């Protein structure tokens, strides 16, 4: 039991090592040039060699993403609350928001540049625009899935709409909320990076672009790896918060 548990725990790490090993072997076996596909060892070398600049750009990407994500939580929760608690607001706003969400965010960046200039502004806003939708949609779902019987029980007692929302709706939507944060944070990193590629002089996106244009493939891959690690770390953070705040929604794991 414990052996299989610990295997399960380290399985992702093992898989990663396996993939890296296969990758390395393929690159060496077929003598693939670093300009086409750098081997993991070459990427690691680039990571160490350019640690300073990479860290600088990564920090920039990190804080712009977090600001955009923060706005996204505030706006997403607010809109989700409005949409989830009012049928009229739902039918009025949801189609429009869906249409908006399906616009490629990369296409919005040039407009943002006109409005806010080159720099952190477009990156923050792109991160926000790309990531608020899942938060909003999940909040709304959590609030809207109230059992009609329970609502009757409370309404008979003289509960106001707000009572029902606070006592039942909000706690019920918390698991949905945390689940959406995990999705949204990874999207926010995508948004920032995309925006940095055209509208910034700093950030991992810009690093990727310049490394690519100079055919410094190991450095480009190092940038990708850094983005991946940051997004995964934040994902795990929110997954951890989710497990520790809404344990009642994950009872399957504890009961058995």
């Amino acid at each position, binding site marked *: 039991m414990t052996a299989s548990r610990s295997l399960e725990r380290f399985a992702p790490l093992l898989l990663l090592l396996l993939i890296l090993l296969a990758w390395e072997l393929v690159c060496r076996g077929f003598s693939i040039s670093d300009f086409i596909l750098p081997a993991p060892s070459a990427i690691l070398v680039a990571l160490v060699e350019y640690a300073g600049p990479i860290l600088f750009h990564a920090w920039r990407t990190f804080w712009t993403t977090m600001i955009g994500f923060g706005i996204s939580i505030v706006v997403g929760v607010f809109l989700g609350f409005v949409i989830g608690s009012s049928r009229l607001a739902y039918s009025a706003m949801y189609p429009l928001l869906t249409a908006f969400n399906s616009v490629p965010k990369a296409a919005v960046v040039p407009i943002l540049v006109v409005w806010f200039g080159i720099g952190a502004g477009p990156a923050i806003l792109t991160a926000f625009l790309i990531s608020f939708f899942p938060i909003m949609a999940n909040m709304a779902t959590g609030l809207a899935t109230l059992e009609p019987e329970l609502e*009757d029980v409370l*309404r*008979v*007692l*003289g*509960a106001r709409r707000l009572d029902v929302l606070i006592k039942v709706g909000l706690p*019920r939507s918390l698991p949905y909320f945390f689940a959406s944060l995990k999705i949204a944070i990874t999207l926010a990193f995508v948004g920032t990076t995309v925006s940095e590629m055209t509208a910034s002089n700093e950030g991992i996106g810009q690093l990727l672009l310049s490394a690519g244009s100079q055919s410094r493939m190991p450095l480009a891959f190092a940038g990708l790896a850094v983005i991946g690690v940051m997004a995964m770390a934040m994902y795990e953070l929110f997954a951890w918060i989710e497990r520790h705040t809404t344990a009642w929604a994950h009872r399957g794991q504890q009961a058995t």
Partner: protein
Amino acid sequence: MTDSTLFVDFREVWLAYSDEAAQRSEFAVEDITLSTRQGEFIAIVGPSGCGKSTFMKLATGLKRPTRGEVRIAGEAVTGPLKIVGMAFQAPTLLPWRTTLDNVLLPLEIVQPYRAQFRDRRREYAERARRLLATVGLDGYEDKFPWELSGGMQQRASICRALIHEPRMLLLDEPFGALDAFTREELWNVLRDLWTAQRFNVILVTHDLREAVYLADTVYVMSRRPGRILERREVGLPRPRDLDITYTEPFAHLVQELRERIGSIRKR
């Protein structure tokens, strides 16, 4: 019977769910006239989809009649009635609250308890514990609903319906999802609570044995649009015990009601 002893009093009540439905004469319930004495236990039986749940909404004031009048405790019903407690087939307990906190929920909402909830929480919790003990849930107060069996959840749900000491308890097929043994156990739990507190009960059910065992009076409703087809007083002596369900008069009464409902279904 004088007016002052009536508790539930439906006078020629019709309900359509919308104005258009009313114009097309599509009613969910039609011409319901029914009255109960103070403290009476009535059961409403009928085929599924007969408007039993609509009847519940009328009795609680969640729906206003299209025609006719509903009076509860001598007053015309104009909005949700706080003197009512409700329980349903699904226990609808909140999974993030312990059993005790679930039972306390109504006190956080209904006045006058709501205003005093913070100050008197300890006292209220004590009251909830006592209530839970009377239905055999002592020791489970701090467990979460998902740690309880279906029957235990339903006991807790009934406690939640009773914590604010309502004068009327409305039960909509409360034991429908339970196995036969648990169901009979809970019949007795309900019987004992009612015997001790003598609140008014409206039990909506499709289980005829349940209706005859628990109620003073059984009403048979027709298929949609729901009408009251028959009123049967259950003459069986109280206190009743499960043994009574195997006696001839009990079986006879159940048989008669079954035939009555069978004849509705054929038409």
